[in-house]
């Protein structure tokens, strides 16, 4: 189920502006890969190219290749909608659909995929909510609005919604930045269990978090304001935080940046 991602010579643009330049990297299946770097370095932008969400923004386009196992996501024959069904995403702010109940939120993706059978829907919803460590907290109020949950619960609901469709890859764009430490802990524990089934890529501003949850870490940086962001270095998390190859990486992780 989990798939490998191979990115080759990827340039990312907003209209004429080049936001990210020349990224080549491999993301291993069943592992957690963290993207770190200063604000505006293009790590979130790059993340959004991995499920073609970048194109949703007017003027957003890319050059280069993103391979999911053997399939090029940017081949003209590939439908971006199909890509997003294989590569799930969790956003910075919890965004459950406010007009839907907890159950319907988790079932939303399944229904988009044409699953109508009530019994199978209920099973998948339960499995996903259990998988997101949320089942025990919501099992008695599945018909209540998802927006009534706490921020941390909402984020786990969004994770349940994303994994319900059984994607190959799960992208997380700063999933804990709007949460309190206890909810953050819950999400981090969850990432630890999810990685046995999924390829997980997480963008984070919190270096301790990257060190805690990830197996591999990629450091992004930009030469100057207005210049495109670049991938500076990617290695085992252990190595990045103890003995990075690049001077810029060392400066950033030791807080001597800028």
């Amino acid at each position, binding site marked *: 189920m989990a798939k490998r991602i191979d990115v080759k010579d990827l340039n990312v643009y907003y209209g004429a502006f080049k936001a990210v330049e020349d990224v080549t990297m491999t993301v291993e299946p069943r592992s957690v890969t963290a993207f770190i770097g200063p604000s505006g370095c293009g790590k979130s932008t790059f993340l959004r190219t991995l*499920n073609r*969400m970048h194109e*949703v923004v007017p003027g957003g386009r890319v050059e280069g290749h993103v391979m999911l196992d053997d399939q090029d996501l940017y081949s003209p024959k590939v439908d971006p*909608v*199909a*890509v*997003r*069904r*294989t590569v*799930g*995403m969790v*956003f910075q*702010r*919890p*965004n*459950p*659909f*406010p*007009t*839907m*109940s907890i159950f319907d939120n988790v079932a*939303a*993706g399944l229904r*988009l*995929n044409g699953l109508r059978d009530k019994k199978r829907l209920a099973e998948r919803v339960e499995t996903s909510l259990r998988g997101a460590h949320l089942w025990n907290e919501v099992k008695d109020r599945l018909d209540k*609005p998802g*927006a009534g949950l706490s*921020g941390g619960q*909402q984020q786990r609901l*969004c994770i349940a*919604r*994303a994994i319900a*469709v059984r994607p190959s890859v799960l992208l997380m764009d700063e999933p804990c930045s*709007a949460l309190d430490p206890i909810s953050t802990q819950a999400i981090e524990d969850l990432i630890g269990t999810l990685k046995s089934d999924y390829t997980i890529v997480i963008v984070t501003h919190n270096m301790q978090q990257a060190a805690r949850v990830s197996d591999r870490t990629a450091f992004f940086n930009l030469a100057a304001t207005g210049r495109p962001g670049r991938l500076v270095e990617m290695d085992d998390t252990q190595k990045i935080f103890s003995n990075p190859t690049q001077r810029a990486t060392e400066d950033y992780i030791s807080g001597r940046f800028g």
Partner: protein
Amino acid sequence: MSGTTGAAPTARRDPFGGGPSDPQGTRKTGRLGDRLFGGAARGAGLLVIAIVVLVGVFLLSRAVPALLDNRANFLTSTEWSVGGESQRFGIATMLWVTVASSVVAMVIAVPLGVSVALFITQYAPTWLARPAAGLVQLLAAVPSIVFGIWGAYVVGPYFEPVQNLLNSVLGWTPLFSDTTVSGSSTILFAGVVLAIMVLPIVTAMSGEIFAQTPTTHREGALALGATKWEMIRTTVLPFGKPGVISAAMLGLGRALGETVAVMIILSALADGTAWSWSLLNGGETFASKIANGAPEFTTPLQTGAYIAAGLVLFVLTFVVNAIARVVINRRKAFTE
């Protein structure tokens, strides 16, 4: 709650949904400016309530004597002979014509207006969206008499074949059965013109709320692998539903009360014409009946008959608004 829905209009305090009138407690500690402004605002609010109540009282006080004098059943009679010794009048025909023409208008205007609003806010490129929205707004500025004349003399002849087709295909149903009315002076055509008149209200209000759908919701749907239409169906439409309902009700309010255009288009029926459910029939709405009857406002009792009809229209619009409120409130738990 996170700030994602902070931009949503439903998150604001809804002035018509009740709530604490003085949440900051400014009344006790208020400075002069606060007190002046607060007083002025309260005065304006009370004035509006007073006006509505007074209109109701006026209508009742004039209508009741005429109703007591009425020899026919006011609600079920189709007669309308006022003046003279014994008045006989009922509103059955007017009620039907008013409701039928307005419902026809809403059946056309709501889907059309929602579609136009979706096109403007979700599909059209920016260079097209702005002029298109402006053009729709311009429709709202056209006076209703212009719509009436344009409808009756320009569009009407082209609409006749449509009616004939409906009559020949669906003539076996009561709604499209044969009538004595010729040409396009029908309830159906009045509804079509009313639809064009309420279209700007429906489009503008729906568009406004569609445009406020938070990006996080839209992206959430897209990231699940929703197509554009599925994204709209799962996020934009549910988010905008209360707005569409209020837009429809405002439009319905205008359609129910529209006078001049309906007066020009509809051909009034002779007194004693047999009852028909056909939309291809003529008739008069409350508003057009009252306007047509203006020359007969001679004695208090005679005028009272028309005022009683006006009272029914007043109550009708009240009921429409109340229903809209209930529908919107019921969905509230899921939109905040």
